[in-house]
């Protein structure tokens, strides 16, 4: 069948495209030596352990990883997915290991194998700098407390919340959690000491309010029973870099002379807003470029899917119509976020293979938009008066010729406004893929905020960039629409 061959061809095309793009965007840190390259997941917003600086990932975890890999001579690539996504990625074997300020807990030990502890952390409570009322856990009664999901801070706060009678407000990253406290929505947050200390150093208007709780230390994790050789190399390398003094150098590079437990709350000098804006522009523009690229690639495949299933929907064959209906119902019925999570974590986890992030993201966007494009094409074709097809067929033209030469040219004009609409929707929807770690405009913004804590300025810029691009695209599309209508 011609149709199915076409579909396979486009699938192959999709893979090819995605692999090429994947190679471009991965931040591979190649080391000398042979053997496999390990995928190491990490958080995006856990300064000073991992964060982005001048477009590069830096931090204690990353420097340590680099030092250990060099010492043990293995190759790896860093996948900054965000903490929760990285945990899922590790579980579904999308990742070989994970280093993300991850506390070694009994609960996690059931799912993962941990290295020797590489950092002794501990949870502290932080409040707004001008807050003089909250000095101990007793003062939290009846208040809201911000926490970051999946962290030790969360677990600790959760364990005492009933005793002290406060409510938890969970967030996905540290910056959002700090904002919650600095804006006064919550009175306090719980976070690992070095992380809070670093943020305060960077100018976040918080102060630590309690001594740190002795908590679980951080460890490097692999999936239970997997990648044991990697775990052993990590342990050996860790011992070596500790012995050589490199470890202390790395830690003091980020935390200064600060040892856990000591106060270090002198904020650095405030940076001007214009400096923040001009520093952010290159990374955001790059993110915007990625957003546009993913939008175009996804819509290309969505269009192919839409053509195939759209014509199946108006075909005389009952089976074809049924297949197309199932396609539309499934992919229109699943929220894009869930579809992305399922394709990236669920399918590879169940079938035991690795899926490049870009393939997963483009697949999710294409299938989702494809379902809508199918309906646009079906609607457009069915909006053309039945008499047009009858007139063409009565002249002796085949169904195919009649469709191509008579129906579609008219239907396309009907479809154009809906296509423009879908373009705008898909462009905005690429931001949803930041949840699985795709680096596009929204994620680029998140990464910058994770480093400079300037959420108002950066997210404002991100919003304006979307607005400008979408407005321009809409205007261009409008003029195309006007022209075709006239023609």
């Amino acid at each position, binding site marked *: 069948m011609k149709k199915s061959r076409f579909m396979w061809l486009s699938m192959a095309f999709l893979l090819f495209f995605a692999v090429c793009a994947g190679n471009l965007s991965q931040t591979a840190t190649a080391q000398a030596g042979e053997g496999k390259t390990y995928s190491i997941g990490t958080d995006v917003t856990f300064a000073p352990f991992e964060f982005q600086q001048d477009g590069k990932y830096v931090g204690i975890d990353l420097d340590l990883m680099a030092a250990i890999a060099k010492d043990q001579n293995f190759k790896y690539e860093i996948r900054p997915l965000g903490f929760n996504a990285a945990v899922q990625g590790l579980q579904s074997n999308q990742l070989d290991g994970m280093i993300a300020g991850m506390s070694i807990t009994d609960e996690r030990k059931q799912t993962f194998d941990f290295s020797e502890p590489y950092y002794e952390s501990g949870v502290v409570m932080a409040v707004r700098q001008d807050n003089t009322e909250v000095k101990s856990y007793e003062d939290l009664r009846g208040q809201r407390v911000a926490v970051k999901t999946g962290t030790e801070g969360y677990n600790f706060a959760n364990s005492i919340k009933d005793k002290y009678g406060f409510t938890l407000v969970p967030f996905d990253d540290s910056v959002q959690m700090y904002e919650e406290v600095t804006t006064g929505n919550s009175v306090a947050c719980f976070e690992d000491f070095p992380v809070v200390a670093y943020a305060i150093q960077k100018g976040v208007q918080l102060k630590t309010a309690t001594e740190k709780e002795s908590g679980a230390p951080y460890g490097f994790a692999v999936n239970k029973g997997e990648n044991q050789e990697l775990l052993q190399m990590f342990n050996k390398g860790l011992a070596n870099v500790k012995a050589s003094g490199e470890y202390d150098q790395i830690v003091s590079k980020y935390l200064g002379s600060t040892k856990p437990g000591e106060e270090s709350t002198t904020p650095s000098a405030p940076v001007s807003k214009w400096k923040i804006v001009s520093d952010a522009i290159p990374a955001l523009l790059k993110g915007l470029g990625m957003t546009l690229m993913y939008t175009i690639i996804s819509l290309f495949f969505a269009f192919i899917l839409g053509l195939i299933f759209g014509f199946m929907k108006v075909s005389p064959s009952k089976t074809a119509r049924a297949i197309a209906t199932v396609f539309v119902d499934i992919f229109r019925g699943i929220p894009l976020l869930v579809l992305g999570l399922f394709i990236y974590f669920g399918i590879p986890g169940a079938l035991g293979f690795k899926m490049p992030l870009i393939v997963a993201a483009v697949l999710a966007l294409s299938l989702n938009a494809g379902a809508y494009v199918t309906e646009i094409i079906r609607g457009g074709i069915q909006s053309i008066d039945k008499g047009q097809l009858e007139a063409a067929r009565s*002249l*002796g033209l085949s169904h195919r010729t009649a469709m191509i030469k008579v129906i579609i040219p008219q239907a396309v004009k009907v479809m154009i406004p809906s296509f423009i609409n879908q373009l705008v929707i898909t462009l905005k929807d690429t931001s949803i893929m930041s949840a699985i770690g795709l680096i596009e405009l929204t994620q680029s913004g998140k990464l910058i905020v994770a480093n400079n804590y300037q959420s108002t300025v950066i997210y404002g810029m991100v919003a304006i960039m979307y607005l400008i691009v979408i407005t321009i695209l809409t205007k261009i599309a409008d003029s195309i629409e006007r022209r075709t209508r006239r023609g």
Partner: protein
Amino acid sequence: MGKVQISNLKKSYGSNEVLKDINMKIDEGEVVCVIGPSGSGKSTLLRCVNKLEEVTAGEVIVDDYNISDPKTDINKVRENIGMVFQHFNLFPHMSVLKNITFAPVELKKQSEKEARETALKLLDRVGLADKADAFPGSLSGGQKQRVAIARALAMNPDVMLFDEPTSALDPEMVGEVLGVMKDLASEGMTMMIVTHEMGFAREVADRVVFMDGGYIVEEGEPEQVFGSPKHERTISFLEKVL
């Protein structure tokens, strides 16, 4: 054997039987007008002749091709059956000329140049030579229908089917379309016309077929059917419309 031969034709939509055992024959060069009240099945019968409607039972034979046989290449047969619709169904995205040349060129009956010459001749014949480059949207109903007739004639058909060709027209435009059809009839075209224009049927038809309730109730020469109808349903219908 007639040009069109319909035997024991039945057509149902689900349990609704629209045509019940129709037998009919149209000879070469004959003009047959089908009249009858709305819902009598006359348009469905016409559409069965070029298989725009699938027949449920019975046989339709046109030009010795059995249309009801699934193995017949219906596209081939349709090339020889012109059809004119109540609502014109011109292709709005093509110029008048392109509407006419489109099918002959597409089906490789004529070169672009030949088709153009034929189209211009046909347009002249229907009195619209000056409208070749216009788009259908700018034409009046009567002009559209004349272009539609030219479009059907461009395929050089043996039989022309007309499905209430003047029903969607303003009264002042009916005449120009009927005029073209009258000329066509006088040139010897085989025509099957579903119409409400009793005067036209009386004047032009070689034979008039009166249908009601899915049956052919009465048929004969116009003078006989209009002048001395035999069946009481014919009489009551004609009383209402004349």
